[in-house]
């Protein structure tokens, strides 16, 4: 085991997981029926751990991230179980949830350009945030604490009273991070924090996020579609497809030996210096209103068998603690021996295209 995971494992022993999510569902209604944006997701996050959440756009990863903070799209419903330091968040009254948000649960967004109120000075953003959670905080204390995090993020104190539009994109993202850390939340969701930034700034932000646990002991859910970032910064990784976590485990294990064909294809499609051609996964992400029956990935899956088109696979835990849901992986690992030869026959092409169209 690496030093990184050792440490997170040791901190976990000091208490239960920071986040314990079981069977979370977040659906929202449209004219065509409910969108199953998050459909039965379970995971845990330990203290000081960074969990990467990866998947294509529209797979529900952003909805999940917001849902953990209780920020749901209008008209959405959420159920399942969500424990934060042992406390059931879904059972919390609205008011207490508000108090938790920002103070204990933080959020960093994708677009730093639009996330700051253009009419408010940076100082006003900090003042507002601190006052919302600590009613009797004084002016000097606000300034002291804001300056402290700003310094950590490398923002010169002279810029404290500037307006958001006076900063560059990378600086704005650091401001956003500073703003979500000023209350020292123990859990932070970072939703594609670097997507809108250029590569050099991206590296800088990732370093900052990676160092958070040293400074603040923060647990981080890092949502991204960039596998490079996961490899660089995360202890564990969860792969999401069509509202479900199809594989979750230690980042090194998952990358070295992906169990789910989707994870494998995702890794293959990543461009690296070594790759000779451009790999991509054919087909489009499924419609979350009416996902394909059986395994949601089967229309695009190169390993698909007949059973995949009819029956949803079951989540199973590997010996190394990874978890996946895939019939092919089951067979490989000696599970699901009761499948008939008819069920394990590779899915024929025609059926793939039909399923794809449906």
């Amino acid at each position, binding site marked *: 085991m690496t030093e990184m995971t050792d440490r997170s494992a040791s901190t976990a022993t000091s208490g239960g997981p920071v986040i314990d999510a079981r069977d979370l569902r977040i659906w929202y209604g449209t004219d065509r029926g409910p969108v199953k944006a998050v459909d039965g997701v*379970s995971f845990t996050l330990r203290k000081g751990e960074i969990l990467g959440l990866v998947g294509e756009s529209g797979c529900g990863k952003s909805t999940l991230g917001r849902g953990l903070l209780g920020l749901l799209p209008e*008209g959405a419903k959420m159920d399942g179980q969500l424990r934060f330091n042992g406390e059931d968040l879904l059972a919390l009254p609205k008011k207490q949830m508000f108090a938790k948000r920002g103070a204990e649960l933080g959020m960093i967004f994708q677009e730093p350009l639009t996330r700051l109120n253009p009419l408010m000075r940076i100082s006003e953003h900090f003042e507002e945030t601190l006052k919302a959670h600590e009613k009797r905080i004084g002016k000097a204390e606000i300034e002291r604490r804001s300056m402290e995090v700003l310094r950590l993020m490398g923002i010169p104190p002279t810029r404290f009273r500037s307006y958001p539009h006076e900063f560059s994109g990378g600086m704005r993202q650091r401001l956003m991070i500073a703003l979500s850390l000023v209350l020292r939340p123990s859990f932070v969701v970072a939703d594609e924090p670097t997507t809108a930034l250029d590569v050099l700034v991206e590296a800088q932000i990732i370093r900052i996020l990676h160092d958070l646990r040293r400074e603040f002991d923060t647990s981080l859910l890092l949502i991204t579609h960039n596998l490079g970032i996961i490899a660089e910064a995360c202890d564990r990784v969860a792969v999401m497809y069509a509202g479900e976590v199809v594989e979750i485990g230690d980042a090194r294990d998952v990358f070295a030996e992906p169990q789910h064909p989707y994870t494998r294809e995702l890794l293959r499609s990543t461009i690296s210096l070594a790759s000779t051609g451009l790999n991509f996964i054919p087909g489009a992400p499924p419609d979350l209103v009416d996902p394909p029956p059986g395994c949601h990935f089967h229309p695009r899956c190169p390993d698909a068998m007949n059973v995949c088109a009819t029956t*949803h696979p*079951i989540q*199973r*835990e590997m010996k190394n603690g990874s978890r996946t849901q895939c019939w092919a992986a089951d067979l490989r690992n000696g599970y699901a021996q009761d499948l008939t030869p008819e069920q394990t026959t590779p899915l024929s092409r025609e059926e793939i295209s039909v399923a794809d169209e449906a």
Partner: protein
Amino acid sequence: MLTGLISPFRRTSGMARWILVSGLFITGVFIAFALFAPWIAPYDFNQQTVDGVKFDKMAPPDGDHWFGTNDQFYDVLSRVIWGARTAVEVVALSVMFSVVIGVPLGLLSGFVGGWVDRVLVFLMDSLYAMPSLLLAIVFSFLLRGPLGGGIIAAALSLTAIYIPQYYRVVRNTTVSAREATYVEAARAIGAKNGTIMGRYLFGNVIQSVPVIGTLNAADAIGTLAALGFLGLGIQPNEASEWGYDLSRALDDAAAGIWWTTVFPGMAIVLLVTGLTLVGEGLNETVNPALRKRRLRPVQLPPHEPSTYLAEKDDTRFAVGDRETVEKRDER
């Protein structure tokens, strides 16, 4: 062509359709008034006597005169109905004139480009910056001499206000159509530039002109009444006009004579509202982006047995079995 006219109607739903239908209904009633005024109105618009007996002056509403009579011994109801004819005539003419002048100017500006375009844009923008009533006042003041105070003069005065709007839309569409053909030309070596541009232009103009047209018509009703109120519109002996009637009602209002004010004004409000509703309804169907995505309440089906596996658990099989999983997928 007919299906083209009906299609925006079919594409509507909910609120947009409701707006469109109620707008069309109100407008339709007034158009019916305009077309059939002689048969609908109990009297002529400048009739003061019936069977040689003069009407009462400023008589309150009663069985003979549902809306009462005014200070000129006229029947208010008849003047309101005949007023619809005047309003519809003037507004239809002015919208037609502005389209006929504004659209070619826009095309010219967009096609020719260069200084012609720049001068026209600047001129139109300046005209647009003028208070519209002031512009209409100046024009009706000028046209009073050569054209008299008739329908045509009033329609032309209103036309001046609305030309810039059609000009702007058509000019901008033409410019973007030209840019679009550059792209096409690079691909197809300019084979069918005219066709592409024509289709593009036609598509965009045919979409926006009806919306602008109805909204302008609504505005024009108000401006026509304003001109009449200021004594600059239609001459009272030529036709019945709501704005003029309201200016006559000025002296009555403080004396508590309400019927000469309420009914002509009501007619204006209703027709303007009707036309606005049609315009807004059309706009929402033409620009679906304005529509709000409707949210349906979600019912989460009851929780199935957990498929969760605690990471420390040594269980091999998840708690759920395949049948429940299949059932979930059917939903």
